[in-house]
C-alpha cells in the first residue's frame, strides 16, 4: 500500500475541504485511482470499467482565480480560471489526488487550459467531433474512445472488457434514469423542490465515489418527495413563476441567479444545462453488439453549444418548455463563453417563436454585478 502526502497548507483548510482531501486520500490508499473530469462529454463508462473513479473538477469558487490569473488572462471564463487555479494552488482534493485528468476538445478556452494543466498533471485530451451532422462523426468519436480505452488500460494496467463496459453502462444508465426521475418531479405545480436545492444536490453527488450509494440516495429521495407531496407537503408555494434556466454550468453563480429568482416570486423548475437535464435523458444501449459504439453514440446526443449545428438544443428546448409548463426562459452564461453567447441569437428567436419571455444574463464568480443582476431578474419576473 502506498502512502500519499497531503498538501503543505492542509491545516489551513476548512473542515469540508479537509474531509474531501481525506476521502480522496483514502481512495488512493486503498488502491483506488481517481480521474478528474470537466465535462458531460467525458465517457465515464470507460473509467468505471477500468476501476478508476471519475470526479468533476469544474471550479465553482472565485477563491483560486487570482492564482490562475498568474498564467491565464483575466478576460476568460471563470469556470476555466477557477478549475486551473485549484490545480496550481493545490487546494482541490480531487485535482490534487487525480492520477489522470481527462479533457475534451470542447470550447477553446478549456482546450488550451488543459494544455497548461498538462505541465502540472497527467492530462489526456479526447478529440470530440463537433460537426455533428457528418456521416463519419460517430465513427470518429468511437475511434477516440478506443484510443482512450488503450490509454486507460496501459496506465492502470487493466483490461477493459466488453462485459465490464456493459455493466458500467447499465449502472450509469440507472443513475441517469434516477436523476431524470428526480428532476422530472419539478413538472408538478407547485414543484416539490426549490431549484437551488435541486441543483446543489445534483452537483454534490458528483463528489461521491460510491455510485451505488448515489443511486440509493436518488431513488430514496425521489420516493420520499413523492409521498410527502401526495400527503400534502408543498415546500414551494403555489403561483410562483415557473422558470427554465438554460446555458452554461452555473454551480459557481447559483446564489446570485437562481437564489434571486426564488426569493422574488419565481421557481426554477428545469435546468437545460450540463448540471441539469441536458445530459441525463440519453442512455447507452447496453445490448448493442458494439458496446463502444453504443457508448459513443450516447454522448453525441448532448446539445452543447460547441456542436455545430447544435440542433439537439433547439429541438429539446421547446419540448422542455411544454413538459415543464414554463412561464419564462432565463439564459445564464459565464462571461466570455463564446459558444453559448453567440448561440443566444438562435435561442432568443426560438423563445420569441414559442411566445415565451426570455432574459439573458452574462456573469462571473465575482460579486460586482449583484445589484444589476438582481434588478434584471426581478424585473423579468415582474413582467411574467
Amino acid at each position, binding site marked *: 500500500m502506498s502512502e500519499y502526502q497531503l498538501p503543505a497548507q492542509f491545516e489551513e483548510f476548512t473542515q469540508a475541504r479537509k474531509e474531501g482531501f481525506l476521502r480522496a486520500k483514502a481512495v488512493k490508499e486503498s488502491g483506488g485511482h481517481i480521474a478528474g473530469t470537466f465535462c458531460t462529454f467525458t465517457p465515464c463508462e470507460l473509467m468505471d470499467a477500468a476501476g478508476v473513479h471519475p470526479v468533476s473538477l469544474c471550479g465553482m469558487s472565485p477563491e483560486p482565480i487570482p492564482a490562475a490569473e498568474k498564467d491565464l488572462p483575466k478576460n476568460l471564463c471563470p469556470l476555466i480560471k477557477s478549475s486551473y487555479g485549484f490545480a496550481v494552488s493545490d487546494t482541490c482534493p480531487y485535482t490534487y489526488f487525480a492520477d489522470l485528468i481527462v479533457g475534451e476538445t470542447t470550447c477553446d478556452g478549456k482546450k488550451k487550459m488543459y494544455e497548461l494543466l498538462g505541465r502540472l498533471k497527467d492530462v489526456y485530451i479526447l478529440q470530440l467531433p463537433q460537426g455533428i451532422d457528418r456521416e463519419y462523426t460517430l465513427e470518429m468519436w468511437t475511434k477516440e474512445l478506443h484510443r482512450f480505452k488503450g490509454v486507460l488500460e496501459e496506465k492502470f494496467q487493466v483490461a477493459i472488457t466488453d462485459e465490464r463496459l456493459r455493466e458500467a453502462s447499465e449502472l450509469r444508465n440507472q443513475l441517469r434514469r434516477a436523476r431524470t426521475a428526480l428532476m422530472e418531479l419539478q413538472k408538478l405545480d407547485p414543484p416539490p423542490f426549490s431549484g437551488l436545492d435541486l441543483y446543489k444536490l445534483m452537483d454534490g453527488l458528483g463528489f461521491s465515489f460510491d455510485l451505488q450509494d448515489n443511486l440509493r440516495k436518488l431513488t430514496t429521495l425521489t420516493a420520499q418527495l413523492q409521498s410527502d407531496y401526495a400527503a400534502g407537503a408543498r415546500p414551494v408555494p403555489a403561483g410562483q413563476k415557473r422558470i427554465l434556466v438554460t446555458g452554461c454550468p452555473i454551480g459557481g453563480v447559483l446564489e446570485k441567479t437562481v437564489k434571486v429568482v426564488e426569493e422574488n416570486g419565481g421557481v426554477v423548475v428545469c435546468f437545460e444545462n450540463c448540471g441539469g437535464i441536458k445530459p441525463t435523458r440519453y442512455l447507452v444501449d447496453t445490448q448493442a453488439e458494439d458496446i463502444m459504439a453504443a457508448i459513443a453514440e450516447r454522448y453525441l446526443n448532448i446539445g452543447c453549444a460547441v456542436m455545430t449545428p447544435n440542433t439537439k438544443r433547439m429541438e429539446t428546448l421547446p419540448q422542455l418548455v411544454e413538459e415543464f409548463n414554463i412561464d419564462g426562459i432565463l439564459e445564464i452564461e459565464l462571461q466570455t463563453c463564446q459558444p453559448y453567447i453567440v448561440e443566444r441569437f438562435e435561442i*432568443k428567436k426560438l423563445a420569441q417563436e414559442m411566445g415565451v419571455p426570455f432574459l439573458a444574463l452574462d456573469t462571473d464568480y465575482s460579486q460586482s454585478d449583484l*445589484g444589476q443582476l438582481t434588478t*434584471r431578474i426581478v424585473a423579468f419576473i415582474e*413582467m411574467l
Partner: protein
Amino acid sequence: MYSIGVDIGSTCAKLAVVEDGETLVHQMVMPTGWNSGGAAQAIFDHLEQAGYRPGQSPCVATGYGRLNVPYAKKAVTEITCHARGGAFLFGSGPCVIIDIGGQDTKVIAVADGVVQDFLMNDKCSAGTGRFLEIMANTLCVDPGTLCELARSGSGVSISSMCTVFAESEVISLIGGGAAKEDIAYGVVDSIVNKVVSQYGSLSSAEGQCCLTGGLCESPYILESLSKKLGRPVISSPLARYAGAIGAALAAYQIKKD
C-alpha cells in the same frame, strides 16, 4: 385616495403622489447624496410637511435604493415602474421607453403599461447619466450645458467603452487642443450610440419612442436620438418622474387589490 411613489436613483431621488390612480398631484426631485436611507427619510419629511401622510397612504419604492425605504409597502424594479409611468405620461399604446439613468441606461418595450422586453447596460457605466456627469466635470460645465454645447460641435468620437478610459481619452483631447463643443459632441454621440445599440437588440419596438430620466429636458439629446434611431423620440418635463409615477400607480394597484 393618494398613492405615493418613491424612486431612489443613484444620482437623484424622486417623489410622485397620484390621486385615485389618475392624476399626478405632487412631485419632487432631490439629490440622493451618499445615503439612500437618508434620501428616503428626507422624502418622508417632505411628504409630512406637504400634508400627504406617508405612513398611511399606500407607497411603493423603486430605483437602486428601493430596499431602503422603510415606509414603502413593496419594492418594484425601475424597469416595471418606468413602463407604467411612461404609459401614464405618453399614452397606453405600445411604446419604447429609453431611460438614461444615473448608473443604468435601459430600453424597455412596453404595451399597455406592461413590460414586453428590456435591455440594460452591462456592469460598466459607459452611456449612462454618470458617464455624462463625469465628462461634464472634466470639461468644467454642467451636464445640461454639455448637451447644448454638443449641438455646435462635430468630428470627435470617443471610442472607449469604459468611463475611466473615456475620461482619459477626453483629457488627451483637451490636451490636444480640441474645441469644447467638439468634445461635448463626442460625449453625447457616444451615449446616443450606446442607446441605439441596445435598442437594436429589442425583440419588438413598436409605437412611440419616449425618453425618461434626468435628460428628458435636453432638446439636443432628443434630436440626436431621433436622428440615429430614425424615428421621433418624445419626452416631457415630467418624464424624470416616470419611475416615481409608475411606483405610485403600483401602490394604488396594491391598495385596490
